């Protein structure tokens, strides 16, 4: 079983909770779909943990926040930019080099892993409707495309006759995802929520049974928010952790 985790955003409490949850569910492989830093106060802890998983065979791709670390000309909102600037001062050169080394897109068997749309990964296109999902599925060319960037979990499918479906999943229900269709799962954000539910999000995929389960995992949001305030990052980022939006 493969655990897919995206948009961790330097939130070590949320990442640890999701990894423990996935392990308990029987996950044997881990895929990290980008945006490991930004917003949160634990970039070093998060990057070290992911690098450790990658050294043991996990897949990781780069997200726009990871890329923004090196690209000073990037355009981001104030709070996000402040967090990136702050991260530059605290993340080790080893950590930065790890993020630099990440690929934008990885294909494996019938799966495609990418942070945003597979159509032009470096353009960070939001997959937030059926048209965008169709384009990403088409560009990725895989039966199963997994991505993040959009923080709310969604499951899209494309039938053999070209019709798209979209579905907002509920935590814990197993959705059959047979290979007679093509699927695109927005796996959810581990480290920062935007739907007024503070619980961390991630997704499990069983390539043998061909089913997908989306999860929301409660974690110690107080600790994560406290660290953000202690680091002097914008208050709005701490509130977003506590309130989930």
């Amino acid at each position: 079983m493969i655990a897919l985790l995206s948009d961790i955003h330097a939130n070590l409490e949320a990442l640890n909770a999701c990894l423990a949850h996935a392990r308990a569910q029987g996950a044997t492989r881990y895929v990290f779909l980008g945006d490991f830093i930004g917003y949160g106060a634990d970039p070093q802890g998060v990057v070290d943990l992911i690098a450790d998983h990658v050294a043991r065979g996990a897949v990781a791709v780069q997200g726009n926040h990871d890329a923004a670390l090196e690209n000073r000309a990037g355009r981001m909102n104030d709070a996000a930019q402040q967090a990136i600037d702050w991260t530059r001062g605290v993340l080790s050169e080893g950590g930065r080099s790890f993020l630099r080394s990440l690929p934008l897109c990885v294909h494996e068997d019938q799966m495609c892993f990418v942070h945003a749309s597979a159509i032009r990964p470096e353009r960070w296109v939001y997959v937030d409707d059926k048209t965008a999902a169709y384009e990403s599925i088409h560009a990725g060319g895989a039966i199963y495309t997994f991505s993040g960037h959009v923080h709310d979990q969604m499951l899209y499918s494309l039938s053999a006759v070209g019709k798209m479906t979209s579905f907002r999943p509920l935590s814990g229900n197993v959705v059959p995802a047979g290979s007679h269709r093509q699927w695109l799962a927005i796996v959810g954000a581990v480290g920062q929520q935007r739907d007024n539910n503070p619980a961390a999000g991630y997704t499990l995929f069983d390539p043998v049974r061909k089913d997908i389960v989306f999860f929301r995992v409660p974690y110690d949001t107080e600790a994560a928010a406290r660290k953000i305030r202690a680091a002097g990052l914008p208050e709005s980022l701490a509130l977003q952790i506590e309130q989930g939006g």
Partner: protein
Amino acid sequence: MPEQTPSLKQIDGFVLGERIHSGAMGYIHRVSGPETGFPMIMKLPRVGAGEAGEGLLAFETEAMILPVLKGPYIARFVAAGDLARVPYLVIEWVEGRSLQYLLDQRGRFAAEEVARTGAAIADALHSLHRQDTIHLDLKPDNVILRPDGTAVLIDFGLAHHARFPDLLAEEMRFASGSTPYISPEQLYDTRSDPRSDLFALGVILYEMATAQLPFGVPETLSGMRNRLWLDPVPPRVHHAGIPGWLQEVILRCIEVRAQYRYQSAAHVAFDLRHPDQVRLTVRAAKSDKAGVLAQLKRWWLARGERIAPLSLPNVRIGTAPVIMVAVDTTHPDDERQPAIRRATAQVLSLSAEFRLICVAVIRAELPGEAAGESGTPYDAHLDHRVRLRNWVDPLKMPSNRLSLHVIEAASPASMLLEFARRNNVDLIIIGAPGPAQQALAWWRSVASGVTAGAHCSVHVVRVAGRQGEDGTPP
């Protein structure tokens, strides 16, 4: 069209037997194979060039939903083939007759039989809705009646399950439903309202009672949309012998606007099982359609009709619970009575669409045991019914939400449990052991028997700090 059925006689260990159905959507064969303890059939979709994608989508939808459905009201799922390889579905072959067969054989049903069969279908729908599933293609062809009278729903090809992607959303619109039974909101692509099934149930009840279809068999979209504003002929006009309560139930089920229908299949089942408790409104006495002007006005309003999205089916019917309160009418002045009434009021205040069932269980009487003071025979039922009415009066309940039942039984606990189960009760409210049970251990009381055996939640009301009862010395 050349036959597309696989020529092989065996698929994944299932041996194909006689083909018992060949339709637009696919084929059905009897099969034998791994021992399940019940007869099985295999459904095979029509596949290949020239076949409509809709048949395959319906097949895919059923293959997704059936494996997770539970309970006695569906054909049990056995196995499904990989849709990318050999699509098939093996399910239980349910022994019984389809309601369509019975309608063809017998035409009109007597009111009692309409009620009995309708309640069985409503039970099945309620079980389905509790599982966040809406059938959306309920019709006599898709109802199998077992010899014991229970109803089994088949063919989930058009169904909606709120926890799975809806493969049919926006795919085929109304085109696939069965036009006499389809609800008004389905004509506007709403696939998430369990009350759509209650509309179809209403059409079925109408058909059973009158041998007519309330909206005919329209063949065009505008023909189907007529049901948004055209009044059906009241059933009693077709057949004067149909009782008012049955017309009330039927017309309430087929209200155009879902909020005027029953809000839960459990409520339909309840009314059909307790005709004497059905509150009659103007629907029951209707002997004609609305006037032309009134219908024209509805037609005008219906032009812009859109239906709002809804919550999960199980959450939706959860707002229309069936609450049962057990009242000890043998001890009307017991100090627990106000506490139980208060608890009931609190529970009821949480929902606007509840149904309250008040039950008094009285000891089965021996012949000639009791006589009234003035020599007239003592009517225990009437007496306890009056007490029950008196008990519930302070709650100021609208009569359409309330029913009163006095039941004789040797074992109150098992009678309450059976009554609750049969009426799809969501919550039982009962007092902790009373004075008569003071000497008994808790586990021998009615409340403990009910708590241990209930299929639903039980709210046990205890008066705090009562002498002797909480274990503290007086």
